[in-house]
């Protein structure tokens, strides 16, 4: 197959074409990064409000409570509480993690790491961001409708999410926002896949791609295949709400016909289970790379890691039933979903072994990206192993919809992905913005975040095991939960600490982007992948000359290397 080369595009001149409607993948990546960080803040404040309500029921939320809820004297009212956790889930999953990991780093890294000048469809790329922007407006508009935003949980199970359970416009806007965001993500995904297939630099086979690109590519495939499934589900939900169809209406409250509310759950989780891998795969890829970069050692079993990620991608599509054990599927289905779920642990264990193998006998430099990557290994170990309780049907009967589930998926989807995102942020900062972030404060940020999130999510698992279930405005109306008040208070304090520690990150980030004078060198981390062969920050055409790839991405410590370097650029012949 011939290799394709792109023109060097003229640098855009006007402000509008340079920063707003830019075709440049790097600028679009940065746009997604700001978008994601904004929503991370919004979702984080919502999380703090939720935690505050759980720990101190009936106490006014400090600082902004009186402004936001004047009619209750600053206390979060129960209906607002429902909106808060719904919006927290939706925002964090679809508007914070997806844009940061897939939108920002997917856009930024894929062309740079495979040696391309831009994405293959730059216009599609720009549209993908602006459609995501429209979707965000739709979602936030819900907050200002008379009956408030969507309040049916991020899963929005009907019949609660139909007109029976939530008559307001907010839920319709929610469904439309998700649909529009699905369109945006699908466009991005098609772009990523085509770019990876077509624009790899000459000499770069699939296994010469950095594992980050593997993770992002697999994510894109899952996105392209499964987002339309969710799209169909929410489309029917919108029809139910707007045109009066009865797909998901049943029981006494449905005036005519019998739909099936469980069908939505099936459709939702056919998408929803791959979605958790959509979120985590980029982080896995990034961590696999960073561990090797900072251990100064080739990634252990890189091929096996890539293939494990692929097999997890495939397995993730056929295990969704474990989210629905309590809806009482037939025992045969229950058994098969349980067994299939368990097989995911084989590839997971293999790449865990590979991660540890990578740092084994390495020469580890504990820079902040490495600390965050090691943090991912730690929290994902916890998150993955606690998944076993939820995959087995009998323990799931007890733990389903308790805080144990909340703790588990926050470990896998929030903690790991967040730490992976921070690692990526600290690591590619010089290439994105041309400056380094302050290393000392990065480490402070890491340790406080790590303590905070383990306090939060471990605490959640503890109260979940003790029987506290999810989405309760005031859990302490139940006698058996009274004893958990101190643990809940502890979780909330951990959350506050972790929330405040993010201010360190924001200041560090903003300072490095806008105010730092001192420029980073072209290759401050001494890494050999293609993006480090070009100046920092990356010029708008990326590569002056399209590189010819001659070795893999993780060439460290080759004994035949002469000179002071212990690494090898991918453009150099392996000695």
């Amino acid at each position, binding site marked *: 197959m011939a290799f394709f080369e792109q023109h060097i595009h003229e640098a855009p001149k006007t402000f509008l074409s340079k920063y707003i409607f830019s075709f440049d993948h790097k600028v679009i990546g940065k746009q997604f990064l700001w978008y994601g960080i904004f929503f991370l803040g919004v979702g984080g404040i919502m999380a703090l409000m939720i935690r505050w309500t759980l720990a*101190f029921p009936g106490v006014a939320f400090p600082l902004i409570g009186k402004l936001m809820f004047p009619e209750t004297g600053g206390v979060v009212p129960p209906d607002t509480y429902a909106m808060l956790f719904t919006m927290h889930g939706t925002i964090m999953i679809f508007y914070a993690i997806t844009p940061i990991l897939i939108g920002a780093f997917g856009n930024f890294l894929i062309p740079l790491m495979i040696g391309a000048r831009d994405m293959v469809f730059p216009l599609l790329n720009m549209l993908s961001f602006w459609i995501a922007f429209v979707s965000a407006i739709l979602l936030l508009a819900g907050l200002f409708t008379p009956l408030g935003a969507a309040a049916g949980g991020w899963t929005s199970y009907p019949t609660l999410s139909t007109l029976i359970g939530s008559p307001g416009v907010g839920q319709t806007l929610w469904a439309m926002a998700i649909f529009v965001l699905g369109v945006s993500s699908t466009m991005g995904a098609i772009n990523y896949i085509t770019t990876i297939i077509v624009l790899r630099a000459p000499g770069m086979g699939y296994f010469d791609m950095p594992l980050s690109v593997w993770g992002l590519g697999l994510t894109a495939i899952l996105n392209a295949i499964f987002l339309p499934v969710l799209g169909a589900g929410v489309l029917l939900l919108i029809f139910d709400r707007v045109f009066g169809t009865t797909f998901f209406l049943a029981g006494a409250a449905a005036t005519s016909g019998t739909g099936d509310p469980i069908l939505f759950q099936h459709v939702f989780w056919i998408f929803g289970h791959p979605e958790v891998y959509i979120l985590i795969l980029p982080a896995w890829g990034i961590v696999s790379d960073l561990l090797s970069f900072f251990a100064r050692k080739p990634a252990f079993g890189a091929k096996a890691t890539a293939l494990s990620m692929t097999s997890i991608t495939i397995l993730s599509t056929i295990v969704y039933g474990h989210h629905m054990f309590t*809806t009482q599927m037939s025992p045969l289905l*229950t058994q098969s979903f349980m067994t299939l779920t368990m097989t995911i642990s084989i590839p997971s264990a293999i790449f865990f072994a590979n991660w540890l193998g990578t*740092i084994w006998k390495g020469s580890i430099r504990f820079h902040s990206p490495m600390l965050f990557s090691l943090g991912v290994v730690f929290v994902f170990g916890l998150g993955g192993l606690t998944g076993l309780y939820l995959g087995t049907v009998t323990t799931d009967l007890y733990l389903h919809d308790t805080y144990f589930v909340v703790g588990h998926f926050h470990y896998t989807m929030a903690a790991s992905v967040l730490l992976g995102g921070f690692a990526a942020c600290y690591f590619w900062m010089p290439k994105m913005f041309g400056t380094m972030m302050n290393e000392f404060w990065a480490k402070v940020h890491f340790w406080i975040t790590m303590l905070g999130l383990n306090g939060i999510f471990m605490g959640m698992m503890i109260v979940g095991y003790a029987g506290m279930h999810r989405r309760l405005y005031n859990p302490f109306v139940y006698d058996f939960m009274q004893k958990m008040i101190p643990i809940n208070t502890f979780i909330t304090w951990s959350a506050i600490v972790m929330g405040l520690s993010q201010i360190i990150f924001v200041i560090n980030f903003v300072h490095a982007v806008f105010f730092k004078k001192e420029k980073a060198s072209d290759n401050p981390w001494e890494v050999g992948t293609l993006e480090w062969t070009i100046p920092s920050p990356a010029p708008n055409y990326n590569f002056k000359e399209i590189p010819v790839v001659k070795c893999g991405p993780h060439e460290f410590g080759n004994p035949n290397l002469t000179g002071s370097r212990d690494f090898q650029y991918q453009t150099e012949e392996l000695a």
Partner: protein
Amino acid sequence: MSFFMPLLSAAAVDTATKSMSLWERMTPPEDISVHGHLIDWLFAYTTYLNIFFFALVCAGLFGFSFFYSAKRHPKAHYTYGNKKIHVIVATIIGLSVFIGIDMNITRMSNNDYIGVFANWPKEDENPLKVEVLAQQWAWNFRYAGKDGVFNTEDDVVYLNDLRLPVGRKVLFQILSKDVIHSLYFPNARRKVDAIPGRLTRLWFQPTKAGDWDIACAEMCGTYHYRMKAHLTTYSEEDFKRWMDEAEEKALSVNDPENPELFWGWRWDW
């Protein structure tokens, strides 16, 4: 925990249980069912295995970080990890996790599920039959009453108040009127969704008399957290006494003209 006490006292909730240890606070509510211990044991067993494997991960993570830091180990060992020995070790780790934990707990869970939790009481075991109708935000319970047939005018119907005998299997059929709820007995370690238009089932056998909580575990609207019912378990004799009284009362109190009364359904096995 004393550090948090000043803030706690500001909370509008009663904190009478101050002097508990952390362990007491994090244990699940008391198990009052014959088979709840199966779930508790599977949880504990999985925990032991998990601790073992997580300790391995931590040993690798912290041990390697300590021994192979750039200071202690300036020259990295050059390997791709694709030698035969590496592949074998990785495969062994993968398989040992799969066989050691996964298939182990899958087998246990499977046996428990098929043998106990999905092994519904037969008619000849004479279980106590209860129909449950969930609505926003309350639980309706219905016993068959004197004639033993559901949805007739002598049914014993209670709102948010369920009373069960000790030592007899109880079989629930559950339906929802409006949105999806989930009938959750923390003390029996059991829950099942209440779905509009679709019957679900649940059974357990209480072992201990006392007062307990029933909760709704599935988000069902603003007052989800208030959807709480009370469970009273009686000894066999006490239950019979209460049931006789309730059946008598039902005959006199139930108004056959009231269509609201007939929310039940014919019991099919």
